[in-house]
Every structure is written in structure tokens, then in C-alpha cells.
């Protein structure tokens, strides 16, 4: 190969500017080692490029340097901690075998102890980490369900009926969200007293004075909105307290009622 040609075909610049392919780079590095002229041509181009780019230097905002130094200090501190934690420097200058053996034994016990405590700590941390992960995933699931509930409330077809407390429970309140498009009924429990364990609340729709069963529910629901049974038509909604599992017709006290 003609060396002059090789040098002047653009490979020098491609290499320096990072534009050469892997194969070209490898070849060029060998050529530099074998022929000082090639290495010299490379260095010449590097120097002229460096000179022109130094001339092009742009003013850098001062805070960038501080950020760089902070990032590096953090990294150095981290590396040191790791080194210190892994460095175990036993002092072995007594020169007497039994002392050495004793020291070894102590070290062995020490490292055994260290091993077990570290392992235990590790297990505890892992457990704590798993607990947190579980908690996060539960919370995320809850948040998502609250979000989808909240989204639902914004549907244009959503009809809202507040239900007021009756003389049986003047403080009680609940709200019906009735999707008039899909006929889905959602219940928001604003305030209902906790019933006895053998009782359950039951929701009714009222049409021409006749009650229609919309299902039973518990006060301690996880969701913001409780999805009840669908109803085609209604003039009012009401909640009564029935035997656990519900009743075909309302028999217990009515707690709240609201007309559309």
C-alpha cells in the first residue's frame, strides 16, 4: 500500500472525528503503530482541529462546573464508602504463631458474626423492600380505581341524585350517580352509620310507588363508588336496613331517600 495515498485518503480525519467504522479504526491503529508517518499525520490533524475548536470555545454558565464537581464528589464519596466497607486490614506483626492462630480465630469468629448479621440485615431490608413494593402496588391499584371513578363522574349522561337522611337517621346521606345512557347505577356513601353484623343496607329504586331491588352493600367499601344493579327507569332512590343478604321487598327502616 502506498503510505502517502493512505494518509491522504481521508482516513486520518475520519478516525479523529469518530466517523470511521470499527474495521477502519482497527486498521488505522495498526498503521499508526507500524508507520510513524501515519501517527504523525494523525497528530497534526488533531492539533489543528484542537486549535480551531479552542478558538470556537463558547462561554459556559458557571453553575455547570459546580454541578459537575458536586456529581463527582458524590461519586468519590460513594466509592470510598464501598472501599472502606470491603477493606479488612488485619494487623499481623507479632510473629508468633499462636498469636497468629488466635488472631485468625478471632477474625474468623468476627467475620462469621459479620456474615450472619449482614445476612440478617440484608434479609430484613429485602423484606422491608418487598413490603414497600406490595404497599406501592396496592396504593397504585387504589389510586387507579379512584381515578376511574372520578373520570366516570364527568360523563355528560351522569345524573346525580342526593339522598337525604330520614327521621330514623337525620345525619345519614348518600348520593346516586345514574348513567342514563348505560343505565348503570353507582352509589357514593357520604355518611351511613355502621350497621349491626347481621344487617346490611339495601338500595332501592322507586317507580310508581313500587320498590325495585338494586342490591345490598357494605359501608366499608374500598371504592369511591359502589357499582349497584342497573335500572331502566326510576323516580326516586332509597336505602333501607335489612337482614344480611337483603330482602325481596323493603321491610326495615329507611335511612335515606332522594327524588330525581
Amino acid at each position, binding site marked *: 500500500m502506498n503510505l502517502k495515498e493512505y494518509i491522504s485518503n481521508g482516513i486520518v480525519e*475520519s478516525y479523529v472525528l469518530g*466517523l470511521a467504522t470499527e474495521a477502519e479504526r482497527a486498521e488505522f491503529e495498526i498503521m499508526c503503530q507500524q508507520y510513524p508517518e501515519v501517527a504523525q499525520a494523525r497528530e497534526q490533524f488533531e492539533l489543528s482541529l484542537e486549535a480551531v475548536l479552542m478558538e470556537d470555545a463558547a462561554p459556559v454558565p458557571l453553575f455547570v462546573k459546580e454541578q459537575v464537581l458536586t456529581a463527582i464528589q458524590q461519586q468519590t464519596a460513594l466509592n470510598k464508602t464501598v472501599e472502606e466497607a470491603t477493606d479488612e486490614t488485619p494487623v499481623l506483626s507479632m510473629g508468633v504463631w499462636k498469636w497468629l492462630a488466635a488472631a485468625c480465630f478471632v477474625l474468623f469468629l468476627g467475620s462469621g458474626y459479620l456474615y450472619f448479621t449482614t445476612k440478617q440485615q440484608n434479609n430484613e431490608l429485602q423484606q422491608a423492600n418487598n413490603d414497600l413494593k406490595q404497599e406501592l402496588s396496592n396504593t397504585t391499584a387504589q389510586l387507579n380505581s379512584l381515578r376511574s371513578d372520578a373520570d366516570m363522574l364527568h360523563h355528560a349522561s351522569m345524573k346525580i341524585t342526593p339522598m337525604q337522611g330520614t327521621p330514623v337517621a337525620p345525619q345519614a346521606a348518600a348520593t346516586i350517580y345514574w348513567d342514563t345512557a348505560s343505565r348503570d347505577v353507582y352509589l357514593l356513601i357520604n355518611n351511613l352509620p355502621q350497621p349491626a353484623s347481621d344487617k346490611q343496607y339495601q338500595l332501592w329504586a322507586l317507580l310508581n310507588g313500587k320498590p325495585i331491588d338494586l342490591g345490598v352493600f357494605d359501608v366499608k367499601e374500598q371504592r369511591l363508588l359502589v357499582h349497584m344493579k342497573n335500572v331502566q327507569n326510576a323516580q326516586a332512590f332509597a336505602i333501607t336496613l335489612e337482614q344480611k343478604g337483603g330482602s325481596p321487598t323493603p321491610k326495615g327502616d329507611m335511612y335515606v331517600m332522594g327524588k330525581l
Partner: protein
Amino acid sequence: MSTQTTYEEQDLILRLRQQDDQAFSYLYDHYSGALYGVIKQIVPDLELANDVLQEVFVNIWRKIGSYDASKGRLFTWMLNIARNAAIDKTRSKAYQEGLRQQSLTEDTVLTGVAVVHPGMDDYGLKKQLLKLKEEQRLLIDLSYYHGYTHEQIAKALNMPVGTVKTRIRSALTQLRTLLS
């Protein structure tokens, strides 16, 4: 090249490898402006360019052990770290969301993704690049400042890969003549 510069650079590298804070501070003060100039050509958004520069110097600090002086000068090594980091940034999701997804098509080439066009700040490398023929400028622009491969450029310009390669090489050779 004088022997003194060599010694200084070797000394600097040695001290950097020993994680000498002062040497690093000197390195930053001396070279950050030049690298920032190159980064800004590739990533015009100043906030992102600052991020890239920070990333670059942290990487220089971390990787100085792998720098091999037999393969080139320290500045060249740092320049390549800076260019790669800047091009990576332009391909990151955050950057692309800021722009319209910019893939290399004949359209983008014709409407000019080129960064090297005449402007107010024509000095240094840019001034020299502007002395090249327009096609040569475009080729350097696409390959150096945008990091497109010869194949991508060939496809966009509807040119054989071999031709793209030869023309880039000849543009680079001319650039060397202009710089020396």
C-alpha cells in the same frame, strides 16, 4: 509540537488518573468551552446542552483510566465523548418529543436540518466549513453533527453508499487542508 506540551499533557493525565481534584478543575476550565461549542452545534437548546456538558465531564472523570494516549490526544478523546453524548441526547425521547420526530428523509435534507449554514457567528471551524462546497458541507453536517451512517445518508440522498463515502472522505481531506 513542543516537548513541553507533551509533558504537561502526560502529567495532567497522570494526575487525573489519581483523581486529583485540582487537575480536574484545570481540565474543566481549559476545555469545557471548546467542548461546549461543539455540543451547542449539535444540541441548540441551552438547557439540554448544559446537561450534556455535565454528563461529559462526569464521564471523563470516570473513564480517564480507559484513555489510551497511543490512540490519540486527550482532547480528541474528550471531543468524541462530547460528540457522542450530544448526538445521543438528540435521539433521546425527551428531545424528540420537543421536535417533530426527525428521521433522515430527502425532505429533511432539502428543507435543511443542516446546522452549518452562514450566520452571525462564522468563526473557527464553522468559518472553514463554509469554504467547502455546499454538498460537502451537507455531508459533513449529516455525518458529523447528526451522526447519520453512510447508509442512511446514501438512502436519503439517493446515492450509492460508495459515492457517499468517497465524497465524505474528500470533504474531510479538504477540511484538513483548510485547517492546517
